[in-house]
């Protein structure tokens, strides 16, 4: 509500710098603003990545260790269960998905750090879109994933991974991996906003991640798991995405796997993005 007495001062002052602008109620303009605000935050997060390279280095070392460990330590054990597919071709699509999932942890840590340092308080007092801090963070993490997944592909090719269904399908697989990473970022955005400090965010993230990544088809075929676990492992999003990516890389029918994977992505964002924004709006 506006009280009459004070408005002249408002008008006189807001013209001064040409800077303070009235909020728009028009949808189109506010959508443009929302995108601009999100990009501004993404830009800021990517600068941090460039300036503190260890953030990037740590998120590449871990999947690298996994590639080498699974390829050369467990690979021999898994090979007979694969019925003719090379383990390295089975593994690398799983590694892509696992990399995207683990990378999403950075979303939680980044947001929790912003809360911890007080930066989030400042953002809350600015006339920016209420979704921008979260959109900016998940977008920056998507950009980081592009780099990490590309690197993992290079490593994969170096240790014998080959694509069997052509380059367009392989690029489709990469897009699928990135979409899944983006969706997972929204889950971890909620984790980060809920816990509010980086150490707790990291500690809280792992118990969510471990069952999703290991009780899945990312590294081994689910057929060798006990029945009760198979039921979960077969249908959970990491497996659906790993299978879809694998189908696009190895060849064979892809439509069902790809649609299921995309359905998971959409469902995750549809549920977690509103919760994340609600947590941001909610007073700390």
């Amino acid at each position, binding site marked *: 509500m506006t*009280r009459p007495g004070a408005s002249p001062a408002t008008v006189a002052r807001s013209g001064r710098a040409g800077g303070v602008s009235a909020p728009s109620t028009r949808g189109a303009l506010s959508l443009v603003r929302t995108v601009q605000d999100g990009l501004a935050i993404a830009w800021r997060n990517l600068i941090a990545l460039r300036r503190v390279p260890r953030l990037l280095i740590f998120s590449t070392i871990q999947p690298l260790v996994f590639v080498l460990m699974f390829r050369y330590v467990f690979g021999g054990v898994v090979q007979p269960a694969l019925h003719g597919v090379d383990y390295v071709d089975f593994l690398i699509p799983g590694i892509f998905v696992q990399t995207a999932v683990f990378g999403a942890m950075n979303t939680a840590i980044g947001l929790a750090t912003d809360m911890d340092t007080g930066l989030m308080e400042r953002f809350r007092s600015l006339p920016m879109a209420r979704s921008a801090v979260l959109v900016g963070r998940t977008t920056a993490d998507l950009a980081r994933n592009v780099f990490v997944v590309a690197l993992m592909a290079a490593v994969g090719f170096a240790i014998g991974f080959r694509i069997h269904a052509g380059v367009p399908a392989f690029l489709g697989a990469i897009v699928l991996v990135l979409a899944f990473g983006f969706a997972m970022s929204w889950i971890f955005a909620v984790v980060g906003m809920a816990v509010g400090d980086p150490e707790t965010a990291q500690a809280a993230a792992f118990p969510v991640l471990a069952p999703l990544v290991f009780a899945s088809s990312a590294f081994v075929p689910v057929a060798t798991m006990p029945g009760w676990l198979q039921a979960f492992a077969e249908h959970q999003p990491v497996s659906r995405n790993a299978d879809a990516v694998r189908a696009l890389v190895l060849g064979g029918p892809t439509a069902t796997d790809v649609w299921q994977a995309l359905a998971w992505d959409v469902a995750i964002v549809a549920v977690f993005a509103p919760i994340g924004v609600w947590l941001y709006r909610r007073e700390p």
Partner: protein
Amino acid sequence: MNEAIDVEDLGKRFGAVTALESVDFRVAAGTVFGLLGPNGAGKSTAIRILTTIARPTAGRAFVLGHDVVRDAATVRSMIGLAGQYAAVDKNLTGRENLRLIGRLTHIRRSRVRARAAELLERFDLAEAGDRPARTYSGGMRRRLDVAAALVPDPPVLFLDEPTTGLDPQSRNALWEMIRGLVADGTTVLLTTQYLEEADQLAERVVVIDRGRVIADDTPAALKARLGNTVIELDLEEAGRGEWAAQLVSARFSTRADVEGSRLRLTSHDGSRPLLDILRLLDAHGLVPGAVAVHESSLDDVFLELTGRRANAAPESARTSPDES
């Protein structure tokens, strides 16, 4: 009078803890207003409500006529906030920090560039402007924080303990800057534990203690109410301090407070009563080891109002979760 901020019967509870209760005050446009109180008094809670970060559980507040709850988006476009802990992105350079705020407050790009350069210059950060804020000293980070609040040239500026931890030189520079802003028409609400700061800057102060307003006046009137001069005598032994206080209170109209061996009196008549007091004490064989006479400060006012010093640690560790 044109009001920039209007707070009506404001209350804030966190579960069972009451951080603010029935707080009322008004801030005239184009003035500096001081919100004073010890740690945990509720100052930051009040600022967070006025800057739309927190919601009141009772009462209403208006910034330039706009309700901070119902019209939060409009309020956000009219305010600047510099927090207690310097909230800048340490990985960005000073210039990038300012440009980020410029983009998020929707200033034209060409204007953002000029504004960032101008503020870096004004806050003596021009040379460090292209270094990551991580490399800044505490004082530099604090200055950058205030500069960030000023990027959109907001008509109302909130400064939450802006000089905490600053060296005297930086503090004076910030005071000068605040005076300059107000001369240009900005309204400034600042919270502080340093009563001298409010004394130096504020036209009007509200003192809050445990979430309630305990004084609302000009610094001069508050000091006059108490007496312009404070006389302190040290009798060097607790027992003697007590005795001296009884003697002085019986003979003179002024009240005498004792803190251990120290006796503290206020005077409306400068240091004139000091001679009479010394003669009285001398007659009873009491000779103070130290005597001090000074102009009463808001520190003395706070002590008078609450019975505690403003900088003393609060009795219960923290009364509200907002001030860290």
